[in-house]
Structure formats: structure tokens, C-alpha cells
């Protein structure tokens, strides 16, 4: 019987229950959607890493041999060790295209996953090629490609197409974070298939260990073991692909936690107001139920179940649909950056817990709403509820209060009287503004980074990258043909008193092709003393101008110590910058790696020293691809914002309307014109909207900032939100608010004065 009563009550308050349902649905829809996405990635990556036996530790050095492997194998806690030769080479056919050639023997660690063609086999003669690279270059199994290894060039058949766990995120360039499969790929071949006369030196040792918690100890032992050799140790945290992908997952995790909170809050608050109203209007019914012999707890449980049902139904629907809708949309964007064998969604247990929490908190809200009602003495419920004592606040005793118009007095008191309702309206509005601003701000910020990076800082047109094995004469050939600024870029390790980081060193020769800006984005130059450090790197190392840092190029033994003369800000490639003269004062020789030039260069140029030529437009284009995928997210956010704003405001407006219908009818009888009544109603709406917007704008900024703080360490994006976006967010919120209001105030005309005033409810 009570169940039927509940359904009838819900039908009667359909609008309100639908909006509560929608909010509960949206909360779990967004949460479960994002959860399924990152948890799916995590699960899939875990499976992939396990299947391909991804190494835990990489030693990068030179002349590793079987003896070394044996020595490491004997260490306790080490599970498996493999040798590998791995180096980037330009493909013979096209200097711009680079292939990372890997030579292995009967390795067991970090094996490629063959997706097409013959399975890995030590006796096969040929190469297994990166599937993405093959696709981008229309290469097929059976085709022959040319491979270059120092000393020889030979041809190999493509045996199969592969994926590799170390190339989930595949980039060879600090200046771009979109992978460029067209120009960068990898290939694997067995040592047995190399030309007889070629002997290669293994430059990598791959290790897997029993327990990741022993990692530090093992690394220390290994570093000690090879103390006499130049070697770089990499683990999952410092591996470009593994750490970038982990970062991505962390970022989505963070995003998935923030947004549903607003919907969650609204759902719980809506239940509170709606249930208060329902139980309020059912005082006599409650009395009747009591008289029929229903216990207080049973009645209480009856009303609490409204909340639980709604929360549960909305939550479950979101749980089912969120992963099916949101995850694939996010995948679209990620597929352009990451390469995984399989993209699948998976719900973590947290999602189920959230739905349970949702239902519980909706139940709790209804409990709070009815508890007071059941306590009330029957006599008290006959009179209209007295306004709370605060109604005569100090504000109202002042002279000013009497000068206020009736409408202002009425609306102010109404806001004070129904605090929860007003609070909800404000939450709904600021949620709307904040989401709009977040979406647009994210787009602005990324747009701006492109301009900042490629227009303001890197003013050159082309970057000519030099082969690392060239002779001075070959470089001279380049120098004679093109003019520009020579730079040397090297990966380095950095150390402050307390922290250690990896980054890039840029040594500058004379020229003005690459520019620097301070934190406030004023142009600065790098002084001829000390080093400049990037803002993000300075933060990571916890140092400021005037402090000393130590750094060394990968593979070198001695640390150099320098004073920080200036801090510059750059979005990509964090590290230090030093002038050539200062660099040479350290006893280092300047080995240019690139020539930056404003000349337009023919892409097909072929010179011995040139490894490849990067045109700025290519980089800008790959950036725009990222923007394209951001657009999808912006769209979702904008739709969510509009839905949130309109559902909340409509629900509250309808609630306030039914609560005040008697007052509105009275005003009509007194001779208020519908237009006047409408403006009275919209006054409150506008106040709350303005208040919500005032709160929403900084929250929107904060959301963008928060999002940026979860970006990988190598990126330093500055929040940038254009005035236009701020205005659009504010206007958009207003439009939602005004539209909802005008929809609602249509009903004013329909108020039937006679029946509205007939009796006391």
C-alpha cells in the first residue's frame, strides 16, 4: 500500500523527482564514465605490460655483455635480465623518417606484441615493424625496407607488424607531445639475422625484479656495480612512455573525482527540499497513518525509501550508460596519442560504492527532511509555519529596509526563509558557470600554448637536426648553406640540495631564433653568467634565482655546478639554458645538435650531416589535432553545464512557484499585472544567478588550474582564459537562467485566483 502511495506521490511531483533522478543519474554517469575509462586503461595496460613482460629497470650505457648479465642475474631480487641494442636511425629512403632499431637475442623481457604476420622466432630473417609506422607509410608484410646501423646499410623483409609496451606513448621530440607515427617508429630484429661481418655492441640491459618495493636498493647496487662506466638508470617513473601513460591515467582519475561532486550535491539537496515539501503537505496523511497504527519508524522508513529509490535508480542507470558513452569519447582523443593493443572499459569497485553512497545520501536527506515533521505536535502544524526568528534581522531594523520596495523585501525574506532552496540555486548556477568556463578555458589555454610555444618563443621556421655521428666538415657544409642559430640539446640530470630531476640542457650560440620569457611573460635574455632554469624545473627542484644547482649530461661522470642567474618560463621541455661561452668555460666542447633557421628549406634536401628537418607548421598541426579532440570534451562540458543549470533552476523555480502560488494569486487579486508578478519572481532568480556566477567564475579558473596541475612534469601550461570565454560563460548562464524563468512565469497567467484562494491547504 505504501509503495503505491510512493508512486502516486512521485507522479504528483513528477518534475521534482525527475530532476533529482537526473542529478543522481548525471553524478554517476560522469563518475562511472570517467572511472571506466581510466580503470580500463589501467587494467588494459597492466595486462599488456604483463603479457609482454615489460622490464622494470633499464640500464642505458655501452658495451654491455653476457658477463654483465650474469653478474646482475646473481643479485637477489632480480628475476630476469636481457640485453638489447637500441638506437634511432634515419631510414635510408627518407632522411626525415626515423626508425628506432632494436636488436635482440633470445630475450624474455619487453617483447613486442605481434599483431600481424609471423610470430617472433630467433631463426627468422627479417624485421618486425611498428604497426603504426607501417600504416602511416603504407608498408605491408613482405615489403622490403632499408635499415641503417653504423657501418652498414642492409635490406630486410617485413616479417610482421608489432606493438611494443615501451611505445604506448611514442615520441622522440621534446617539442611536441603528439606522436608522429609518420616520421617515427620502431623495428625489432634478431642478432642472428644481421650481416655476418657486423658486430654490434649492446647498449641496454633490461631487468625485471621480484618486488617493486626493492627497486631502489637494487638500483643502488647496480649503479655501484657499474660505477666505472657511464650509465643511465631508468625505471617506470622515469620511462617516457610508461610515466606519460601513468600520468594520463592519474589526470583522468582526478578529473573524474571533481565533476560529479556538483551533481551529487544537487541531488542530495533537491531531495531535501522536495521531501520537506511533500511531508509538509502530507501532515494530515501522516497523522492518519499514525492513527491507522503505523509506527513512527515505519512512516519514517517510507519517506526515506523515496530518496533511496531515486538515488539507486538514477545511480544504476548512470553506472550502465556512463561507461558506454563517456569512455569511448575519451578514447577517441587518447587513441590519437597512445597506442594500446586493446581499448576496453572496466568499472572499478569504487563506482559501485559511489552508487551505494548516492542512494544512501539521498535516503539520509529524506530522513533529515521528515524527521522534523514527525516530531511536530499536531496543533503546531495547523498554523502556517512561523518565519524563523532571524526574520527581524538587524538589517530590517535599519531605516534603509523601509525604503526598499515591496519586491525586494519579499524576495529577500523568501531567500532567507528558504535557505536550502537558495543555496541549491546558487550551487546549480555556479556549477553551470564553472563548467562552461572550465571547458572554454581549457580550450583557450591549449590554444594559447600553441601560440606561446610556436609564435613567441620559437620564432624559427625550421629546425635542422644534425646526425649525432657527423664530422666537422659535414657540419660546415650545412653552415655554408644556411644561416641561423646553432644550439646543442642534450638530456641531463639535475640536482639541487634536496631533489633530483631529469631534464634538457640547451646551449645557445649567437642568434635570435629562440626566445625566452620570464614568469610574467616579459621577454628576457639569458645572461652571460650562470644558467637559466625553467620555471617548472625550478619548482620541481625547489630552487630560486641565486641558488646553485648541479647538472650533468647523461652518460657523463662529473657534475657541473652553476648559479641560477634567471628563471624563464616555457611550456614544453623543462631544464636549463646556458650560453655557449659559459658552457665552454666548464671545459665542455660545444657540439651543435641543431640549426634553427628562419629560411624556408626544401624538405627533400640531402646533406650528410642532416638527420632530419622539422618544419614548425608540422608541429603546429599536430598540436591542432590535440585541440580537435579537446573540442569534444568542451562540448560535453558545455552540455553538462546547460543541463545542470536548467534542471536545477527549473526544479527550484517550480518548487518556489507551487510554494508561493497562494501569494501570487493574492497579488493578482490585488491588481498586480502578470508582468509585474513575473518581474518580482525573476528578481530573486537574477540575484541568485548573479551570486552563483560570482562564485562560479573563480571556481572555473580553479578547475582549469587544477587540471593543469595534473599534467606531466615536462609540461608547464599557464592558465589562460580569454575575456571572451568569461563573458560567454556568464552570458550562457544568464541565458539558461532567464529562459528557465520565462518558461516558469508563463504559469502566472494560468493561476486561477478563485481556486487558489478557496481554502487553506
Amino acid at each position, binding site marked *: 500500500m505504501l509503495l503505491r502511495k510512493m508512486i502516486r506521490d512521485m507522479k504528483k511531483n513528477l518534475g521534482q523527482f525527475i530532476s533529482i533522478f537526473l542529478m543522481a543519474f548525471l553524478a554517476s554517469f560522469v563518475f562511472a564514465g570517467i572511472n571506466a575509462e581510466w580503470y580500463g586503461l589501467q587494467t588494459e595496460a597492466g595486462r599488456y605490460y604483463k603479457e609482454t613482460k615489460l622490464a622494470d629497470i633499464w640500464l642505458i650505457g655501452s658495451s654491455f655483455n653476457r658477463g654483465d648479465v650474469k653478474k646482475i642475474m646473481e643479485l637477489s631480487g632480480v628475476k630476469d635480465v636481457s640485453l638489447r641494442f637500441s638506437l634511432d636511425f634515419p631510414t635510408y629512403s627518407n632522411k626525415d623518417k626515423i626508425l628506432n632499431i632494436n636488436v635482440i637475442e633470445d630475450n624474455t623481457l619487453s617483447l613486442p606484441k605481434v599483431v600481424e604476420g609471423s610470430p617472433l622466432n630467433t631463426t627468422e630473417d627479417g624485421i618486425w615493424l611498428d604497426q603504426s609506422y607501417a600504416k602511416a607509410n603504407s608498408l605491408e608484410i613482405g615489403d622490403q625496407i632499408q635499415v641503417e646501423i653504423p657501418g652498414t646499410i642492409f635490406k630486410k623483409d617485413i616479417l610482421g607488424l608489432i606493438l611494443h609496451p615501451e611505445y604506448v606513448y611514442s615520441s622522440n621530440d621534446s617539442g611536441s607531445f603528439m606522436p608522429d607515427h609518420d616520421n617515427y617508429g620502431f623495428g625489432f630484429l634478431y642478432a642472428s639475422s644481421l650481416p655476418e661481418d657486423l658486430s654490434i655492441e649492446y647498449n641496454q640491459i633490461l631487468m625485471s625484479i621480484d618486488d617493486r618495493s626493492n627497486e631502489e636498493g637494487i638500483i643502488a647496487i647496480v649503479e655501484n656495480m657499474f660505477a666505472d662506466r657511464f650509465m643511465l638508470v631508468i625505471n617506470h617513473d622515469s620511462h617516457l612512455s610508461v610515466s606519460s601513460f601513468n600520468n594520463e591515467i592519474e589526470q583522468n582519475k582526478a578529473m573524474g573525482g571533481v565533476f560529479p561532486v556538483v551533481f551529487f550535491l544537487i541531488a542530495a539537496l533537491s531531495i531535501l527540499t522536495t521531501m520537506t515539501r511533500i511531508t509538509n503537505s502530507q501532515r494530515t496523511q501522516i497523522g492518519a497513518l499514525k492513527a491507522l497504527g503505523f509506527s513512527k519508524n515505519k512512516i519514517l522508513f517510507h519517506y526515506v525509501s523515496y530518496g533511496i529509490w531515486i538515488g539507486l535508480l538514477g545511480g544504476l542507470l548512470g553506472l550502465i550508460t556512463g561507461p558506454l558513452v563517456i569512455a569511448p569519447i575519451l578514447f577517441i582523443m587518447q587513441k590519437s596519442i597512445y597506442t594500446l593493443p586493446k581499448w576496453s572499459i572496466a568499472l572499478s569497485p569504487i563506482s559501485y560504492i559511489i552508487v551505494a553512497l548516492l542512494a544512501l545520501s539521498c535516503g539520509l536527506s529524506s530522513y533529515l527532511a521528515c524527521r522534523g515533521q514527525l516530531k511536530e505536535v499536531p496543533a503546531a502544524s495547523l*498554523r*502556517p*509555519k*512561523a*518565519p524563523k526568528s532571524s*526574520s*527581524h534581522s538587524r538589517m530590517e531594523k535599519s531605516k534603509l529596509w523601509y525604503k526598499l*520596495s*515591496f*519586491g525586494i*523585501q*519579499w524576495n529577500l*525574506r*523568501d531567500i532567507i*526563509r528558504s535557505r536550502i532552496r537558495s543555496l541549491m540555486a546558487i550551487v546549480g548556477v555556479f556549477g553551470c558557470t564553472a563548467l562552461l568556463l572550465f571547458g572554454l578555458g581549457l580550450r583557450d589555454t591549449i590554444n594559447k600554448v600553441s601560440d606561446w610555444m610556436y609564435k613567441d618563443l620559437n620564432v624559427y621556421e625550421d629546425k635542422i637536426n644534425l646526425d649525432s655521428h657527423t664530422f666537422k666538415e659535414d657540419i660546415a657544409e650545412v653552415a655554408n648553406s644556411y644561416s641561423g642559430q646553432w644550439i646543442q640539446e642534450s638530456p641531463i640530470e639535475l640536482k639541487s640540495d634536496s631533489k633530483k630531476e631529469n631534464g634538457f640542457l640547451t646551449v645557445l650560440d649567437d642568434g635570435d631564433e629562440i626566445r625566452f620569457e620570464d614568469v610574467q611573460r616579459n621577454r628576457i635574455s639569458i645572461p652571460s653568467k650562470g644558467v637559466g632554469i625553467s620555471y617548472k624545473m625550478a619548482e620541481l627542484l625547489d630552487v630560486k634565482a641565486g641558488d646553485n644547482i648541479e647538472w650533468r649530461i647523461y652518460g657523463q661522470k662529473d657534475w657541473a655546478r652553476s648559479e641560477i642567474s634567471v628563471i624563464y618560463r616555457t611550456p614544453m621541455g623543462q631544464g636549463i639554458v646556458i650560453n655557449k661561452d659559459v658552457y665552454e668555460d666548464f671545459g665542455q666542447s660545444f657540439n651543435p645538435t641543431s640549426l634553427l633557421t628562419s629560411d624556408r628549406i626544401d624538405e627533400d634536401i640531402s646533406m650528410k650531416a642532416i638527420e632530419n628537418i622539422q618544419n614548425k607548421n608540422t608541429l603546429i598541426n599536430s598540436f591542432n589535432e590535440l585541440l580537435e579532440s579537446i573540442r569534444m570534451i568542451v562540448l560535453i562540458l558545455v552540455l553538462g553545464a546547460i543541463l545542470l543549470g536548467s534542471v536545477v533552476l527549473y526544479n527550484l523555480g517550480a518548487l518556489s512557484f507551487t510554494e508561493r502560488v*497562494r*501569494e501570487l*494569486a*493574492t497579488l*493578482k*487579486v*490585488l*491588481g*498586480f*499585472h*502578470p508582468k*509585474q508578478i513575473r518581474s518580482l519572481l525573476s528578481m530573486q532568480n537574477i540575484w541568485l544567478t548573479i551570486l552563483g556566477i560570482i562564485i562560479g567564475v573563480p571556481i572555473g579558473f580553479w578547475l582549469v588550474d587544477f587540471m593543469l596541475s595534473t599534467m606531466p612534469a615536462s609540461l608547464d601550461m599557464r592558465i589562460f582564459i580569454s575575456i571572451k570565454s568569461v563573458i560567454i560563460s556568464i552570458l550562457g548562464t544568464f541565458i539558461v537562467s532567464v529562459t528557465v524563468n520565462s518558461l516558469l512565469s508563463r504559469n502566472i*497567467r494560468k493561476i486561477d*485566483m*478563485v481556486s487558489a*484562494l478557496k*481554502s*487553506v491547504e
Partner: protein
Amino acid sequence: MSFIRFDKVTKDYVMGDLIYRAADNISFDIEKGEFVIVLGPSGAGKSTLLNLLGGLDYVTEGSILIDGNDITKYDEKALTIYRKDSIGFVFQFYNLIPSLTAYENVSLIKAIKRDTMDFNEALSLVGLSEHGNKFPSQLSGGEQQRVSIARAICKNPKLLLCDEPTGALDTETGLMVLELLQMLSRQNGQTVIVVTHNAHMALVADRVIKLRNGKISEVVTNQSPLSVREVSW
């Protein structure tokens, strides 16, 4: 011509296929400044009549002339103006705005009308000058009803319409309210029409309109009406 003229007024309520005739061919006149009592059993059509007169509802047939103007020809906008300028309404359930004080409930009229009575004067006229700062929930029923009368008269309406103003009050308080209404009519020359169930009140009115089943059963004019106090003794 009379101040108010009901001319063959009929009001049908349509409920699906059923038509209920709540006012059936009603005609009567009322002169300016009269204190009129409408009597009749429940469901006779008293409220219907008052609502039509007050411009809250539309007639099905007939015309209602106020000062020579036929309000049945008015559209919604004109009716709103008519209610604003000419009518003061008092209901059984006071219909005050709970979130406004007594004074604010009266003074809200200034939002629609300029030539109003002074609001404090209106409150003291109904004997509530001390209670202006109280909220409706802090006032007794009779006091609330008097606030709603103050709100109605401060508009300086041509016509004060009261639908069972004493219905929710005890006898003594009800009498006080009726006395107040009679006083307004006698001293200020206000035309007042009161619906009541108290048949004794026929004696205090200048004119008594008796209704039954939507029809007029009798209209009595009283040459020497008594005062409310005299009747209640």
C-alpha cells in the same frame, strides 16, 4: 442609474460533460455607500457572485455595470486595472503574505498604486497601529483579518468585497470585524458587500441579498439598519 447593476447574470461551471449553473439569471442593484449583506446556504452561489463582481472570474451571460461601465466586456488587462483601482477584497482565509510584516502586507500596495491611504492610517483605522511590525504568524486570526481589511481599504476602492470575513473567527472577534466594516461604510461612505452565514446580520445591512441554488430568493432593503453591537446583544 444605480452604482452597481447585475443584469441577468448567469455563470456556468463546465466540468467535462456536466454543466453546473452556479448563478442563474441574477439581477439586482446596489447604491453607492450601501452596506450590503449576502446570505444563503452553502453552495448557493454567494462566492460566485462576489468573484464575478470583483473581476476574478468571467460571466457566462449577462452584464455587470459598475458606475455605468460593463466589466463583463473587459479583457484580462482591463480587469487587472479594474481590480487594482476599484476593488478591495477580503477573504475568509486572510491571504496575507507570511514573509511580510503587517505593515509590509499593507504597504505593498504602493507597488501598484499611487493614490493610496496612508498605510499607518489604514492600520490605525483597523486598530492595529501597535502591531505593524509583527508577522502574520504572530497575530491572532482576528488581527490578521483586520490587516487584510486594512490592505483592502488603503487602496481607496470603490467597492469593498468581503467573502465570509468572519468565517474563521470566533463569534466575538467576528462581531468586531463586522463592526469595523459597518463603521467604514457609515463614516467613510464606503460601499461594502459582505457574505456571511450569520442570518442575524440581516438587521444591520442597508440591503440584504438572499440566494438559493444560484437564484435570488429575496432582496430586502432596510430603512433603519441597526448597529452590529445592538444586534449581538
